[in-house]
């Protein structure tokens, strides 16, 4: 990316080099297409083509079971969605999920990254153990959580019983089911934001902290006046990727609660899945998928604009 954005002079040089391509280099042009062919062709077939279909089907009465879509129905899939209480519920659940999971994951990740920023004995081990939940398969770890949270033999309920709390069906009662899914996702995501923040913190020149320390700033003050503003681009990056991946949450919901109780943990992707492969309402499924996609794109664009404005403000 950065290479593409370099000065016009470099581009001019490259253009001149292109003008003096030798015959053998031109022959290699063909090889270039061959080399990108596997990636490009497979992506078009299994990604861009289904994407185009999703958009198209969202305006039809497509049935994924029969493969038939015999009528263009205009916007009726979309108007149906807006009136479907199940869709509204899924949207609200997803919104709550994103609004809690993303900031908490970022904040806790940054907290541990800052704690582990300076070398001390055992630092690597702590970092590794906090990171592990992020790479372990979700089905496996979600099953472990379903055991920990179980009213039967679960340690969380046992710990609560010490305070006289009666066993809670965390995964089968409202609002605990959604809370459990949220806590699980934060637990899983903290390790990732921690290592990304660690890399960002390591890039801050130590002299900044040194100077502030000499001026009498304590660790907390230094964190909020130096580290936090300087990792802002990382926060932006993690916020975008976090929101986009949280919009697609499925596996932990499927394993922990199955979308229940009474759809209280049903998320947008869960809704798309059910409409498409349980009820075979391909049109509604596609319309919901398109809305999901638009949300993701909107978030990326907004975030990029905010970041760009901040950068120009700082420069100016």
């Amino acid at each position, binding site marked *: 990316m950065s290479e593409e954005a370099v000065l016009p002079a470099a581009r001019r040089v490259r253009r001149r080099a292109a003008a003096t391509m030798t015959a053998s280099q031109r022959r290699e042009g063909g090889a270039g297409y061959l080399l990108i062919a596997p990636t490009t062709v497979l992506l078009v077939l299994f990604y861009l083509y289904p994407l185009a279909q999703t958009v198209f089907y969202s305006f039809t009465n497509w049935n994924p079971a029969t493969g038939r879509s015999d009528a263009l129905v205009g916007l009726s899939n979309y108007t149906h969605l807006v009136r479907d209480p199940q869709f509204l519920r899924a949207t609200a659940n997803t919104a709550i999920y994103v609004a809690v999971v993303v900031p908490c994951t970022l904040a806790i990740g940054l907290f541990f990254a800052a704690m582990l920023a300076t070398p001390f004995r055992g630092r690597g081990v702590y970092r590794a153990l906090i990171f592990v939940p992020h790479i372990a398969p979700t089905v496996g770890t979600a099953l472990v959580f379903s055991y920990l949270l179980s009213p039967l033999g679960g340690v969380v309920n046992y710990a609560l019983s010490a305070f006289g709390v009666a066993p809670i069906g965390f995964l089968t009662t409202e609002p605990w089911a959604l809370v459990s899914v949220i806590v699980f996702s934060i637990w899983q995501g903290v390790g990732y934001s921690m290592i990304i923040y660690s890399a960002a913190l390591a890039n801050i020149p130590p002299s900044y902290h040194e100077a502030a320390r000499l001026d009498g700033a304590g660790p907390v003050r230094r964190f909020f006046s130096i580290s936090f503003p300087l990792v802002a681009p990382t926060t932006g990056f993690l916020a975008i990727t976090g929101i986009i991946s949280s919009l697609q949450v*499925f596996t932990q919901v499927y394993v922990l609660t199955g979308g229940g109780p009474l759809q209280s943990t049903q998320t947008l992707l869960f809704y798309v899945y059910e409409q498409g492969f349980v009820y075979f309402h391909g049109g509604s499924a596609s319309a919901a998928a398109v809305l999901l996609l638009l949300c993701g794109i909107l978030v990326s664009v907004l975030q990029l604009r905010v970041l760009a404005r901040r950068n120009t403000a700082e420069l100016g």
Partner: protein
Amino acid sequence: MSQPLRLRRLAPNVARHAILLVAVAIFFGPFVWMLLTSFKSSSEALSFPPTFLPHEWRFDSYLRIFTVAPFGLYYLNSTIVTVLATFGQIVTSLAAGYAFARMRFRGRTVIFVVLLAALMVPFEVVFTPLVTLLSQLGWLNSYQGLIIPNVPSILGAFLFRQFFLSFPTEIEDASRIDGAGIWRRLWSVMAPMARPMIGSFAILSFVYNWNNFFFQFLVTTRSRYYTVQVGLAQLQGENNTTDFGLLMAGSTLAIIPVMIVFLIFQRQLVSAMSGGLR
């Protein structure tokens, strides 16, 4: 050093370790609990108050899981799918990354920008027509269906492109003057040089493919082609919801390969994730 001064130095250190130990209990404790439970009998796993260490170390959950479900087959399926998809991702990404970095052809920038834009579209958005397409191809419940749609990796192409861009051109020029053709140059000169990049990407891709539940869940409906993740999720659904000894043995088996890879390649994995993705 005077006593109060030493204390003042020591106190923050103790506080730091205390906080971090609580963190380890929260983030890593569940794995320890999972492993210990997998050695308990099913009734002990449900006992109240719970036991920490098993009364009696039993392995029958591990024996049982291979009889209540074809878990050996799931393991084989996961291994085949993960190894081949990872291999495919490496080869295609290396080739594409090299071409985007080093070769000149019409439309290179346009194609690359389109791919980068496609990175914004998560696979989850397009799955309904994708599964229908795979079904028309007869690829549901098949290895090719589980593997081939996962082979193209935009991230991989992007990472290899960055790698080759940061690489000096002299060696290539030398081998070009020596008369090595493009294929020779790519596979016997450049690919070996890219070994560190191949290593990090292979680890990343292994973890991704092994854990890839949602896609595998959509493509398989018959247990003959279930992967470990799908098989484990189905196991929970089949009236085993409270057989935690069995489920924890299954989770342990599902998690172990990734843990081993992480233990051996921790540094590469972390640097690939923290450096590579940006």
